């Protein structure tokens, strides 16, 4: 049997652990640059505040109802997620962490009745709550897809006391009849719309379709979802294959950046961050893309895009090489007439390959790659002990003109010795 453990309103719950005055109140957490809503407490949902709505559209609601607002504190959320997952991992032979706030537990051949598993899951949720302050909901069933269905019931109805079990065929059919087909794991908006055209609205109606129809109209992936809804486990959560590309991209604060020095600093940092991500994956990149553009929403000032793809002479993860590439694109494309405010920029490393497989040297490339690799290892050793970017490329600079606006950021209570709770 499988369980799906899902943190309730995760970002909001993290904020509440370190500030209990946020309990029971409407609370929203915002995306980068405090732009949109990315998490809502139940009280905020009740006020009609939707997911991903831009803040400027609901400012009046936020003020009228005294809704608490927080900027995304990813450092805190990542740390709290690690704590939750560590505890969950104690409860099953195999755990698959699915996202920052969800994990599948595979109980394997654990011999327990579904009722026993339900109580076991409640105990697990109680331990997570006691140890970290984060409330979770657990769904238990014979397949991962059904466990996910069950977890929605556990989250929605207090009567389940934190864990809902789908075991018998009767329970399964009842649960599926109360679940919209678009809410099933693996069935997205497109398929939900297609199924609606055939009159299929609930997960039960979908599960009762002939399998041949499902395979023909929703491919083998759709068929696997169908099989899982009918009680046959067949979906594995596989580890991600080597990434083919890695991006670092951010919007810029306020109306945007007008000075070349500021945009250079931002892009240098995006390039360095990307290079390190490539390095940490054990990959090398063959091409890089650099871009920055003005706001696509503003009609009152001139728009401009600077972008290019650069082919690297030798596949590499070298930070100085990537930063240089970014700088050359920017300097070449810079208009210099002071009329443009760039609102977003990004850097992408592409064509990623396994660094250990040996790299085809380029006859015309003068770079001493062995020496560069030693430099990377030295930087890595220093930065891992003294902090990220302790040793950095000079163009990365130290200004914060390009840093995202986060006016409502709570402290890094668990990851920064200078920002601990004061008691």
């Amino acid at each position, binding site marked *: 049997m499988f369980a799906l453990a899902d943190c309730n309103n995760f970002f909001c719950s993290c904020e509440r652990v370190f500030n209990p005055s946020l309990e029971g109140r409407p609370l929203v957490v915002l995306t980068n640059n405090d732009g949109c809503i990315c998490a809502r407490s139940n009280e905020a949902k009740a006020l009609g505040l939707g997911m991903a709505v831009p803040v400027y559209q609901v400012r009046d609601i936020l003020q009228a109802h005294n809704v608490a607002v927080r900027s995304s504190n990813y450092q805190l959320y990542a740390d709290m997620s690690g*704590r939750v997952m560590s505890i969950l991992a104690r409860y099953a032979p195999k755990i698959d962490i699915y996202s920052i706030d969800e994990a599948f537990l595979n109980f394997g051949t654990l011999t327990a009745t579904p009722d026993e598993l339900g109580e076991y899951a409640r105990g697990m949720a109680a331990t997570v709550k006691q*140890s*970290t302050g984060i409330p979770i909901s657990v769904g238990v069933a014979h397949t991962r897809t059904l466990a996910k269905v069950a977890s929605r019931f556990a989250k929605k109805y207090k009567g389940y006391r934190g864990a809902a079990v789908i075991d018998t065929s009767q329970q399964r059919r009842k649960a599926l009849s109360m679940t919209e087909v678009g809410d099933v794991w693996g069935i997205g908006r497109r398929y939900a719309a297609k199924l609606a055209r055939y009159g299929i609205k609930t997960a039960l109606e979908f599960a009762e379709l002939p399998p041949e129809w499902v395979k023909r109209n929703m491919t083998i992936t759709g068929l696997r979802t169908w099989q899982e809804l009918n009680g046959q486990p067949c979906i594995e959560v596989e580890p991600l294959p080597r990434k083919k590309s890695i991006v670092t991209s951010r919007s810029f604060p306020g109306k945007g950046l007008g000075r070349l020095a500021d945009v250079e600093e931002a892009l240098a940092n995006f390039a360095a961050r990307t290079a390190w991500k490539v390095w940490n994956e054990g990959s090398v990149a063959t091409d890089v893309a650099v871009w920055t553009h003005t706001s696509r929403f503003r009609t009152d000032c001139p728009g401009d895009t600077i972008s290019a793809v650069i082919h690297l002479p030798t596949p590499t993860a070298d930070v100085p090489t990537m930063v240089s590439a970014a700088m050359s694109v920017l300097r070449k494309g810079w208009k210099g007439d002071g009329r443009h405010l760039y609102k977003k920029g990004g850097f992408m490393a592409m064509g990623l390959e396994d660094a250990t497989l040996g790299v085809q040297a380029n006859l015309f490339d003068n770079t001493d790659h062995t020496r560069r690799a030693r430099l990377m290892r030295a930087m890595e050793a220093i930065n891992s002990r003294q902090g990220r970017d302790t040793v950095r490329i000079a163009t990365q600079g130290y200004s914060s003109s390009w840093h995202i606006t986060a006016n409502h950021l709570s402290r890094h209570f*668990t990851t920064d*010795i200078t920002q601990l*709770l*004061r008691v």
Partner: protein
Amino acid sequence: MSLNKKYVADIESGRTPAPDISGIRPGGFPSPARDYMKEAPDLNNILTPNRPAAFFARAANDNMMRRGIFKGDLLIIDKSATPRSGDIVLVWVDDAYTLRIHPCGIAPWGVVVFNVHYQRSGIHR
């Protein structure tokens, strides 16, 4: 100024080498200690055996000095521990965190299990 080269970091391995006492250098004398080697005590295991539930806090005042906690001390809190009578607990009251002795009429956020007090003068991070 000449460089006083006393120690060269082993950049190839990415780490500065620790003295190797496992005694497996070719041509050298094997260490008599190699069957008895044990790692030094790990403070992480001693101070925070239950890592997911271990949180740090900073004492903001001397209110608990009768229990040896002074302003600036680093507190280690176990959020999973069941409080016992006499424990120093962290509680949320009047919109702030504070330390109390259990039982105090308020459900504790966690139990203070260790206090790290810097014994030298001056501030320590």
